[in-house]
């Protein structure tokens, strides 16, 4: 690096660390507050950051247990957080499996199979992925409202309807996986071809084993994307026992029934597992996003 006087450097270091520490302190503030609130009595924000009289009430309620206060009042859990969590996970896992299957096959086709119109389709795909599913909310509502007359399985308030809609999120993942498949040495599939493997067999026996880590990342990404969805689930799911956690959590902060403390515990409980999974996968995620977006 360029020669710098040691005195200058010392000041620069101090400024850099100082800036980062102050910035991180501000960024972390919401998390600290939420942890503190979840241990505090009552549902309003009064008291210091370190609760004077810590209580596990909100945590009991978030875990679906009734809580008996010291004065003998029994508090039932306000909302079925664990059930919502289960719904979210169920929907996200099933839809992500579908997304992984479709995007793997499609990405392989775009990367290796020669067919007419491939370049045009790729361009279309790139443009389509910028159109959010939320643009189609009204049609989705109308379609599933109609289908519900035929089979409740694909009607409003059915998890299968939501899963089917989430399948349309494959576009982004096709790009991510295609970027990965493009980086696989073509000599490998040529070798398979010479041995008489069909394209399907090449995918099954050569590409699939190679792409397992990347497919896992796509799975995690689509899983997190689905868990985070609010608009689609809020339109297609109505009954309290069918809601996903993202839709249900909103009820906690209703002006008429403001359950700030209960929300804090439920938020940590449902957010922590996803956060940990994400932190483990994020390294791959970003390379996938930037590569997928730029490689033509």
């Amino acid at each position: 690096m360029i020669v710098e006087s040691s005195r200058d450097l010392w000041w620069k270091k101090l400024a850099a660390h100082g800036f980062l520490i102050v910035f991180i302190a501000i960024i972390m503030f919401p998390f600290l507050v939420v942890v503190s609130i979840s241990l505090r009595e009552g549902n309003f924000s009064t008291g210091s950051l370190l609760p004077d009289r810590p209580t596990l009430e909100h945590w009991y309620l978030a875990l679906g247990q009734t809580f008996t206060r010291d004065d003998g009042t029994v508090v039932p859990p306000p909302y079925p957080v664990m059930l919502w969590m289960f719904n979210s996970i169920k929907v996200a896992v099933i839809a992500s499996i579908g997304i992984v299957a479709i995007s793997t096959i499609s990405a392989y086709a775009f990367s290796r199979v020669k067919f007419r119109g491939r370049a045009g389709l790729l361009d279309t795909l790139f443009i389509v992925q910028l159109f959010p599913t939320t643009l189609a909310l009204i049609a989705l509502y109308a379609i599933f409202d109609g289908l519900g007359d035929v089979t409740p399985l694909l009607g409003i308030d059915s998890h299968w309807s939501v899963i089917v809609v989430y399948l349309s999120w494959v576009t982004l993942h096709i790009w991510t996986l295609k970027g990965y498949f493009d980086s696989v040495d073509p000599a490998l599939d040529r070798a398979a071809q010479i041995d008489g493997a069909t394209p399907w067999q090449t995918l099954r026996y050569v590409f699939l084993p190679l792409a397992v880590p990347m497919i896992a990342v796509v799975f995690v990404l689509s899983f997190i994307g689905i868990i985070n969805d609010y608009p689609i689930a809020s339109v297609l799911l109505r009954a309290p026992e069918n809601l996903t956690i993202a839709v249900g959590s909103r009820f906690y902060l209703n002006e008429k029934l403001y359950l700030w403390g209960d929300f804090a515990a439920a938020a940590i409980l449902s957010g922590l597992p996803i956060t940990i999974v994400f932190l483990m996968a994020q390294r791959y995620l970003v390379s996938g996003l930037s590569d997928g977006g730029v490689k033509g």
Partner: protein
Amino acid sequence: MTEIALKTDVPAPRANLNWLGLGVVAVASLAGLYCVWVLYALGQTLLAALVLGLVVAFALIFSQQRFYASRFIFPGIATLLLFSAFPVVYTIYLGFTNYSFLNLLTYERAREVLLSRTVVDLATERPFNLSNTDGQYRVFLPAEAGGLLSEPFALDGNPVTVPVAAVDAAPEVMAMRDVIKLREQLGKVTLTLPDSTTLVSSGLRAFASIRPEFELQSDGVLLSTVDGTKLTPDQSVGFYRDEAGKTVPPGWSVNIGLQNFQYVFNSAGIRQPMLAIFAWTVAFAFLSVSITFALGLLLATILQWPHLRFKPLYRLLLILPYSVPAFISILIFKGLFNQNFGEINLILKALFGVAPDWNTDPWLARTMIVIVNVWLGYPYMMLLSMGFLQSVPEDHKKAAALEGAGSLTVFFKITLPQILPPFLPLLISSFAFNFNNLVLVLLLTRGLPDMPGTLVPAGSTDILGSFTYRISFLDSGQRFGLAGAITLIIFVLVTVIAYANFVAMRRAAAGRPTP
């Protein structure tokens, strides 16, 4: 290794497999055709046609060896057409209809609803008695000799339909005042006479037969059996009209051409807020992208500095906001920014004695939503910047520094011009994402506070997408048609953004040596 595995694992007797495969394709195609028929019967002609096309393509591609290559692309294309393209097209189609809470049904369904309406024919009223044997009740309809006695039933307030049969002698009946106490439960009882007329309770002491309120005439007109009025279907508004011209619900949805668009563009009460919302949508997306980009790049540059220690720790803490599920962070901020009970105002009050109206002042609400979005979005930009910064050759910077350029000059003259072109498609993607960042708006503000004096509730923090969401699902009587029309406008805007992104991506790809 791989080659050996291939040879041992994959010996497939082709002919056998083909017959099995053809069978599966045939069965799947037939199932698909059944779906087409069901959809067509439902009145979803457009969707039925699309599914039919997909079924035919499926049958062709998977039965003919020469379409082998297409088999890989079929699942992806089918998913996109069915679940991405079709719903968008259908939403826009709805923009040309009056589909709404008032006009929710199809014409056939609306007619059915009216035809299934019944009236009590007071002319057929006849008195009744009630008998009670150990909680099992029977209705007795006396006649000149004997009468009609119903099957026993439990009078528990649930709707029941019971047959009645002729008997010779009257049973022991209850006193009238006890019967009157049960009038609410009796209201749920339907009697079926041997000649299949149905009777319902028509008063305290009587049952009477019911008959349909309307009769269908051959020309589609509904004739009232009560007062002889005629209801004529009016396909231009999707309602039946009575003789005075008044519309009679329920309505059905009909094509109304450009009326929704005229409504949007011509009435000031909706055009003004639409323009304001559009301007805010663009401003919001632009502010979000530029602030997160600047902040992310700044942090990445600092983290890239060779003299900095504890880099992994800083990095981990800095990306934490990105790793927490967004819906949770947004709701946390909703609580923190709460005007009355929120921590942020508590602290501001303690420190400076002010409590800003985050929820009611339009500009403060907008500031809040941008702050939250920056918090949510900067780590993504930071991570991307760190990747792109690494690709800037170190010797370019050194050369510039040797020429006497300060570190700021180096950054703006050397680093930024090098990372901006590959960054551009991602910035545009991020712009498109924020342009439709429904999750943030719906969870944080729901568009509130509302602008005063608008025809359709429109909020100062609404973006176009959340505006249509509110029109369709929250507070304006489910005006899907109107929302569909606005969706077309959003669609055009997103297309422009997407095309810009496409061009930017092409340029970036061309400027980069292909690996």
